[in-house]
């Protein structure tokens, strides 16, 4: 019995030692097989190749720089609920905002609404002052109210979107809010809410066609 235990113990220790040896073996392998580099070329050839590389790099840098908008654009971080206003590569202003709550609202009629802010690149489609909110169906369903007809007066709410609204298309807006204490939290139905000062700054900075990047 004792010798059996001894054999098992020796095998176990040997396996452990071998397993421990594995990283050392791999280091030895790389020591004997380094990345093959050659330095046998003529200096003139090297110089010419270096100049060509630098030229190609400068060309690529130019092409990449051309991708960055020169005018104002907005970047919205939906995870931290923050926005950044840029002009070219210069950061103009950064502050809190509110984005989609990720609530999935379901009713008994098997209808579903997902309240999330879409991600990707958008453009400002239109700009309005003193916007009026035309409440969609989900706004009534969420409050446990019956859904009125399409143009019923109860659908129209004044002053709840702040002084300005900028449309991103598909019903998504950048607008103001009455609930300023919720800024910095994911509470909206997909729109982007800003405080009054930030909304004014964004309204004045972005024009129709300006880019908005949401992630």
């Amino acid at each position, binding site marked *: 019995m004792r010798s059996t235990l001894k054999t098992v113990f020796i095998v176990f220790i040997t396996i452990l030692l071998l397993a421990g040896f594995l990283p050392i073996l791999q280091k030895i392998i790389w020591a004997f097989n380094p990345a093959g580099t050659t330095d046998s*070329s003529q200096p003139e050839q090297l110089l010419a190749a270096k100049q060509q590389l630098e030229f190609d*790099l400068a060309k690529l840098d130019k092409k990449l720089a051309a991708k960055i908008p020169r005018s104002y654009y907005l970047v919205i971080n939906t995870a931290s609920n923050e926005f950044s206003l840029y002009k070219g590569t210069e950061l103009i202003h950064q502050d809190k905002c509110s984005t989609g709550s990720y609530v999935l609202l379901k009713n008994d009629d098997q209808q579903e609404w997902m309240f999330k802010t879409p991600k990707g690149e958008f453009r400002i489609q239109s700009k309005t002052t003193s916007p009026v909110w035309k409440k969609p169906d989900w706004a009534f369903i969420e409050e446990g109210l019956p859904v009125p007809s399409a143009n019923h007066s109860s659908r129209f709410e004044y002053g709840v979107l702040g002084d300005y609204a900028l449309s991103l298309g598909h019903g998504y807006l950048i607008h103001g809010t009455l609930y300023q204490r919720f800024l910095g939290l994911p509470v909206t139905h997909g729109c982007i809410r800003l405080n009054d000062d930030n909304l004014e700054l964004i309204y004045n900075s972005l024009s129709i066609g300006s880019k908005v990047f949401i992630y």
Partner: protein
Amino acid sequence: MQIPGIKIRQLGTLNITAGILFVIVFIFLFCIGLSPLHKRNELANLTKADSIFMSAYNNLYDDPLLAPLSRQLAYKKALLHMAENDSINLIVNLSDSNIHLTINGVIIHTTRLQSFDIDPLLLNLPNNIYHKIFSHPLYIVEEYATIVKEPIVVRQAPKNPEEAAINAYQPDTLIQNPAFLRMQLDYDIHLVFEQDVNSGWNDQKTQVAFRMKYRISHFFERLKAFFSLKKQNYYPTIRIKMPVNDLREIYRALPTHARVVIYYS
């Protein structure tokens, strides 16, 4: 009472079994030890087989003087390829210790890396293989994370305004689980992101579970390959530690099968 002859025979059988086991384990570990070399040969063959790439590749780039510049060129080429894509993608710039999110060539988020570790296979890659792999964006083939992509909260519509008032949605910050992420990219390259600070018991438990999940599945994959006499696959891995909030933001921003550009020199 035991007969001495039987005992000796039992001991002999045990020693033979132990010896066989030892040899099997030794061969198994030796195969694993050689797997990075197999992988490099596989990548080298892949590179040589691409005649268009090989004819465009300038051998002078292998010179130590030009290699860093040529890698920069590969990086910029990959960025330009990625800039044609209008979804959110990832840039891992290990030379600057930065990670960026980008859309259409515009950098929308930057995170400074706390620390990172590059696989010896990648560090020892010949320059032509480096160019073949990293002068294009790599696709995320598979990913596993300890956090959810979309923290969805399901709510049933209330029957009346009274019920709506009782169950009013209380805004809160999103559920913040410890964040660990593994991405498998083209060429079997793995990118592992870990939060830089593990403060509590839950963080450490999640980290151990995250690492064990991969190690166990990888161990069984290796065993299967060994007993079916197949080559051991090797997954060159880049490990990155970064602030947890940035890790969450990056993971949630990236669509599935996003593209990644990696640069190191």
